[in-house]
């Protein structure tokens, strides 16, 4: 059995029409039959009552003059009515006076009042026979209702026949109706199938009318048009895209080539600059060393000869020369790093020795500004393979910076070992309680010749190359330097370095 939802539209329409027509017919037939049956019964009852009245009236004289034979004769006229089962006349005292058919017996007792009613299929009539005010007797009729049953049966047969005819008619009609409805739909379905099977978006469904299906067809065609238009556009894009990609690739290629040339040029320039700086620094350092040496000699002579004014002046000359020498050294180192001429040594390094040495060297400088300088490191740190000179240089830079920017505070150097990617590393933390820096300055301090503020160099001295150089040296050693700072509370510089262990049996302790 097919579910209604799955049935073809054709059958749905047919079924629907048959159902509606059948239901309407069944309902109307049922109503008609009930009505008809009622009417028939009423008619029958009325006819029986009329008969009772006529026969009763005709029996008046027979009753009045007590002539039972005559009464029986009159009742005999009932034989014209085939449904008449029994009839009788009761006289005024209620006794049976005459009967029909002749010899009939066992009549029900006389009931008071006139009655016309159906009792168990038969129509029963009690009708009084009056002679003016006097009641002469009562006539009783018992009428069978086979005619009613026959009529009902005929009615039912007729209705069933009509129902059959109507169903056939509905089917025939629905074929015509469904053609009107389904033909355009089937058309549309066919076009839709063609479109989906062959991807042929140029197909169009035919519209037959301006009803809902017509609207559907229009919408469908509109949709196909849009898809077709979009397809065409996409095709155009695809063709263009290849051209565009080719031209962009060409442009990129050219730009790349230009960039490469520019880079080479820039590197050449940079190398030339570094070479120039390295040479210049070297050339500058030689006479400066002579100046420092002779200034120190002259100062010793001045002190020895008691010319204190001269000694103080020479002291200033010596300080300035020292400063200049440091500047030149920094520039030289920086340019060496940039020129790629600086290389890290690979020798055994004893961390505790380096730390103690630096702290010892810087303590007087820290004390000058009222700072305490402390170092802490875990005991028994093993020596590693590295460049002690460069490590010393970095730590010196960081610690002297911390001392420089702190007054009456604390400077702490902490060394912590840790593991990174299964290799031993050391973390050197330089912490001060100095002036600190804002976030804006933190980004700039590792640049060449830059201090946190313009005013800084005037107030604290320094070349502005220290941090930049330290970072480059750190990178040269395979590590890095990071900084955190809160303005007014201090700064923390962290140097992380790989500390490869010394291979067994290699090097000297």
């Amino acid at each position, binding site marked *: 059995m097919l579910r209604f939802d799955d049935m073809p539209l054709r059958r749905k329409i047919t079924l629907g029409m048959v159902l509606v027509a059948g239901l309407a017919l069944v309902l109307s037939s049922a109503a008609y039959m009930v009505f008809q049956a009622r009417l028939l019964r009423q008619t029958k009852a009325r006819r029986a009552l009329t008969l009772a009245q006529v026969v009763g009236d005709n029996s008046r*004289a027979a009753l*009045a003059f*007590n002539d039972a034979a005559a009464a029986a004769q009159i009742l005999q006229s009932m034989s014209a009515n085939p449904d008449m089962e029994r009839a009788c006349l009761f006289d005024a005292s209620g006794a049976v006076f005459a009967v029909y058919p002749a010899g009939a017996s066992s009549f029900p007792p006389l009931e008071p009042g006139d009655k016309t009613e159906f009792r168990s299929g038969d129509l029963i009539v009690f009708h009084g026979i009056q002679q003016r*005010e006097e009641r002469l007797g009562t006539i009783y009729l018992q009428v069978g209702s086979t005619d009613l049953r026959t009529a009902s049966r005929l009615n039912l047969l007729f209705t069933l026949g009509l129902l059959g005819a109507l169903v056939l008619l509905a089917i025939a009609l629905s074929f015509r109706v469904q053609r009107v409805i389904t033909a355009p739909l089937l058309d549309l379905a066919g076009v839709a199938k063609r479109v989906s099977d062959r991807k042929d978006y140029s197909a169009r469904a035919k519209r037959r009318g301006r009803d809902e299906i017509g609207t559907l067809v229009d919408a469908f065609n509109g949709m196909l048009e849009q898809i077709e238009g979009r397809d065409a556009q996409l095709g155009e894009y695809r063709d263009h895209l290849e051209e565009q990609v080719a031209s962009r690739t060409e442009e990129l290629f050219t730009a790349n080539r230009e960039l490469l040339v520019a880079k080479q040029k820039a590197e050449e320039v940079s190398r030339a600059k570094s070479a120039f700086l390295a040479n210049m620094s070297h050339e500058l350092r030689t006479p400066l060393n002579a100046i420092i040496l002779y200034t120190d000699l002259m100062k010793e002579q001045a002190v020895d000869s008691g010319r204190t004014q001269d000694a103080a002046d020479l002291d200033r000359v010596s300080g300035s020369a020292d400063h200049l020498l440091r500047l030149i050294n920094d520039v030289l180192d920086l340019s060496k790093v940039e020129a790629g001429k600086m290389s890290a040594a690979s020798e055994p390094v004893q961390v505790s020795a380096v730390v103690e040495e630096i702290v010892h060297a810087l303590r007087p400088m820290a004390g000058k500004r009222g700072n305490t300088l402390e170092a802490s490191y875990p005991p028994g740190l093993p020596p590693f393979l590295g460049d002690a000179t460069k490590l010393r240089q970095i730590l010196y830079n960081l610690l002297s910076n911390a001392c420089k920017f702190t007054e009456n505070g604390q400077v702490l150097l902490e060394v912590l070992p840790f593991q990174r990617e299964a290799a031993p590393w050391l973390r050197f933390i330089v912490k001060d309680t100095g002036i600190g820096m804002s976030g804006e300055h933190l980004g700039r301090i590792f640049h060449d010749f830059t201090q946190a503020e313009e005013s800084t160099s005037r107030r604290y001295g320094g070349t502005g190359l220290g941090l930049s150089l330290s970072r480059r040296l750190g990178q040269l050693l395979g590590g890095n330097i990071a900084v955190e700072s809160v303005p007014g509370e201090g700064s923390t510089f962290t140097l992380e370095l790989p500390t490869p262990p010394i291979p067994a049996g290699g090097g000297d302790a």
Partner: protein
Amino acid sequence: MRARACAVAPVIAALAAPAAAVPQSAQPEYELKARFLLQFPEFVSWPPASGMGDPARPFVILVLGESPFGARLDQAAAGRKVQGHLVEVRYSRDPAALDGCQMVFICGDQRNRLDALVARAAARSVLTVADMDGSAARGVMINLVIESSLPRFEINRAAASAASLSLNAQLLGLARKVY
């Protein structure tokens, strides 16, 4: 003329058997006959001139001659109505009493002047009833007879028509004989 000739024979027969016609007031037969008497007018139509148009007037039944009913007729007629008129029973031996009544019962002792009475009643549209053998043939409109111990009647339709009275077909249907 033929009707007249026919009417003679029963009269002779009735005269031959006077004892059978002698009413006996104690017989229950007269109770039935009294009731018949009160039923007959319902099946008879009087001409408009007979005074039946006025419901206020009584329906007068005259018992002419020596009444065989005793008190039975009075009892049966007490408070009874005929065609809407109250029934009044009068007893008389005087044929003049026929004036103003609608129905007369001619008792057996009036046999000798039956013809004159019949003629007089017909002229006044009075329904004539008797229980004398052969009286119907002599012009009495309804004659009561006994048939297997039940009262029945004969009818002289011509006499009724002559008196401008019309008898109901049902009544005629019950008559044992119609003249």
